[in-house]
């Protein structure tokens, strides 16, 4: 028989354990020698206060008094949490065996109904790897490789389950044009055939979407998972995320967006430097290929200075890790931006493309991308210039939780 004393001890323990997660999200002060808020000029000797999962205050140390009871952390450089605008991590796992590769279903080239949330593994080791290097938000999901490979989602790199991690369960619809599709499927076997198949599908979805507007429910078409997803693209609810690399594919993507009137996000775009005027005129953003992507086949024209050229042309862009089929299994946007900055992209433009520009591109700038009062408490601490090879990421906060405290 347990005594009353051991029972009350157990009760105390239970209460303490319940409080633990709260304690982790309690109040934190971060002192940075340089704080890049991405909302105004960098602050020398700045302070960021985190409370209840959001940013409570940001400013110079001379203006902010750290309240009693706040845990204080110090860093040479502080930035907002980094955003990877195109990944497959969580669907594609570290082992690269059949069991952990769920990023591309090859039974059909058109499968818009595949939801990313049904496959995302929040406990995947590569999610942890990205988190430890300052990536706090990922736009992830179905990979390039099919005309329509499935849906994408946006998640924090924190949380035990997809439910805890997800912040947008349907972000975009992943599409691919070009030889990459023909290497996976018997048909389409050519670029033109692929485009005709996609247009046929879009026409069907257009008819479905129009049919669903009928006033009398009896006149509406039967519910169809494929059609209702693609219809959401046509209705302007979500963008088409089109993986294109070579000039003919880029032009085709712009042509399709014009024909069907959907919002387009260009993905990869190794030859974007050949069509800067056309892309800029379209107004559509580019999730630029990782500068260090292997230059081979369709990406043979990729360049370290593509981001610099997009920036100069005034094209909205952000960084992505993309899809890697072998080693390394994921890229890290912090490292990709560093190479872009070393090849002509201004320092602050590089940082913006990892944070506030990426948040705007994903439609989440109201809560992500900068260190501003009321925004999510996603913060990264470094022991030097974030882009230097030898600088380490020494601390990561997500939703105010101190999720990493070791330098990497």
């Amino acid at each position, binding site marked *: 028989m347990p005594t009353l004393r051991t029972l009350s001890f157990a009760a105390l323990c239970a209460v303490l354990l319940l409080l633990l997660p709260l304690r982790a999200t309690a109040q934190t002060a971060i002192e940075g020698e340089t704080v890049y808020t991405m909302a105004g000029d960098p602050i020398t000797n700045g302070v960021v206060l985190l409370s209840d999962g959001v940013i409570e205050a940001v400013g110079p140390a001379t203006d902010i008094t750290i309240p009693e009871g706040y845990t204080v952390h110090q860093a040479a450089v502080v930035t907002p949490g980094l955003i990877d605008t195109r990944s497959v991590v969580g669907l594609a796992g570290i082992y690269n065996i059949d069991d952990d590769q769920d990023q591309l279903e090859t039974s059909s080239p058109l499968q818009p109904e595949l939801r990313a949330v049904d496959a995302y593994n929040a406990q995947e080791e590569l999610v942890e790897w990205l988190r430890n290097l300052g990536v706090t938000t990922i736009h992830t999901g179905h990979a390039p490789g099919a005309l329509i490979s499935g849906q994408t989602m946006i998640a924090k790199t924190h949380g035990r389950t997809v439910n805890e991690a997800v912040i947008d369960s349907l972000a975009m619809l992943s599409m691919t044009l070009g030889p990459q599709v023909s290497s996976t499927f018997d048909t389409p076997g050519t670029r033109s055939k692929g485009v005709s198949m996609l247009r046929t599908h879009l026409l069907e979805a257009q008819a479905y979407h129009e049919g669903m507007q009928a006033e009398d429910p009896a006149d509406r078409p039967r519910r169809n998972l494929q059609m209702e997803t693609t219809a959401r693209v046509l209705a302007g609810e979500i963008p088409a995320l089109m993986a294109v690399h070579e000039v003919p594919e880029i032009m085709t993507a712009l042509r399709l967006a014009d024909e069907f009137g959907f919002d387009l996000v260009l993905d990869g775009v190794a*030859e974007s430097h050949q069509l800067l005027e056309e892309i800029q005129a379209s107004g559509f953003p580019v999730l630029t290929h990782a500068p260090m992507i292997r*230059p081979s086949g369709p990406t043979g024209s990729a360049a*370290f200075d593509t981001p610099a050229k997009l920036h100069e042309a005034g094209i909205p862009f952000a960084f992505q890790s993309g899809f890697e089929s*072998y*080693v390394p299994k994921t890229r890290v946007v912090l490292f990709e931006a560093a*190479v872009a900055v070393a090849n002509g992209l201004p320092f602050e433009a590089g940082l913006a493309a990892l944070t506030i520009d990426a948040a705007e591109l994903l439609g989440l700038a109201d809560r992500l991308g900068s260190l501003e009062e009321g925004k999510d408490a996603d913060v990264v601490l470094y022991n030097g210039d974030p882009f230097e*090879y030898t600088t380490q990421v020494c601390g990561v906060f997500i939703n105010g939780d101190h999720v990493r405290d070791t330098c990497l």
Partner: protein
Amino acid sequence: MRTVLLCLLSLLLAAAPLQGQDQPIAFEGATLHPVAGPPIANGVLVVADGTIVAIGAAGEVDIPAAAERRDVSGKVIIPGLVDTHSHIGRQQGGDRSSPLHPEVRTLDAIDVRDNSMMRARAGGITSVHIMSGSGHLLSGQTTYLKLRHGDVITDLLFCDDPTTDICGGIKMANGTNPIRQPPFPGTRAKSAALQRALFVEAEAYREEMANGTASRDLANEAMVEVLNGDRIVHFHTHTHEDILTVLRMREEFGFNVVLHHVSEAWKVADEIAAAGVPSSIILLDSPGGKLEATNIRWENGRALAERGADVAFHTDDLVTDSRLFLRMAAFGVRAGMDEDAALEALTLAGARMLGLDDQVGSLEPGKDADFVVLSGPPFSVYSLIEETWIEGQPVFDRSDPDDAKFATGGMGTYEHASGHVHGQD
């Protein structure tokens, strides 16, 4: 008479470029990293006839009166990089007919005109070890190349005569990559048994050679070179148990070996150091991509160097990009490796592992004039490779747009690039 004059004139003109090569060049004002000694601020490097003739601080070096003098103040000069493991030049090794191909030479397939060779020059690589893949227990004889400009393989070889000389090492592998359908092995133990049987057969052949009873056998001839210590085994191996299998086999047959990749070096660094076996390692932007690489760590360089084990880096191009070779060592530094050790691991250590350290790998009088001119410190992301020199000749010059495109990439630069990635062949 006029014809004779014209002939003499053309001879003189034809000789002019040669004379240019012979003229000594003095590089003045840069920070020099000889690797063989401490860095020299405001240094002078004198090269002539393709060789380093002097190196030292300004004022302490005799600059020949005839020398062309180049002001490189503010720059940093390091030895030409030695890449101990690369797949540039559209290399090929053995085919699927057997898991063992000691008779196959990569030098018979390398395309020295492929633009991947310029990718390496743009990355400051001056000596490269080109090898075939790891999808075999032994995929073929490897090739050591100097990345001089040249139209044919013989222009780039380290050896004099590919018909009679040893022009590289030999590539072996264990772990998952060579495990395939028969005639390939299905297990690790079978892999080791097949490799040991090859050595046992070579031992018998060596005896026949001594007795004068051996008939020509290309495979056994190469393996006897291995047994005699004249041809180095470059052994692809990842996990700690596979690493120990290589050490065990070396103990049994007594060959010279370099461990390659060595993803789990941090787990058996003591054993590697105790065996006195060098490691040629790779660092990756993320672990995984294959089961064997899930435990790879950036600390591998530090773990080996701290124990006194010889360690070099390699690109495994196109697993990592030759243009970013300096970056890999910088990541070693990020994980605690000493900067001097990291620079040595890009240069002199690699030269030792290829048996070429008497000729390349450091800035010392008498060695080949192979060096790289950087705009800043070697391990900074902001430092650009401005020039790569081999034997006193520039092979990459970033100020020339025709060369610069190979550094940055761009339209058509690597359109038909060789893209060997292990395990996908």
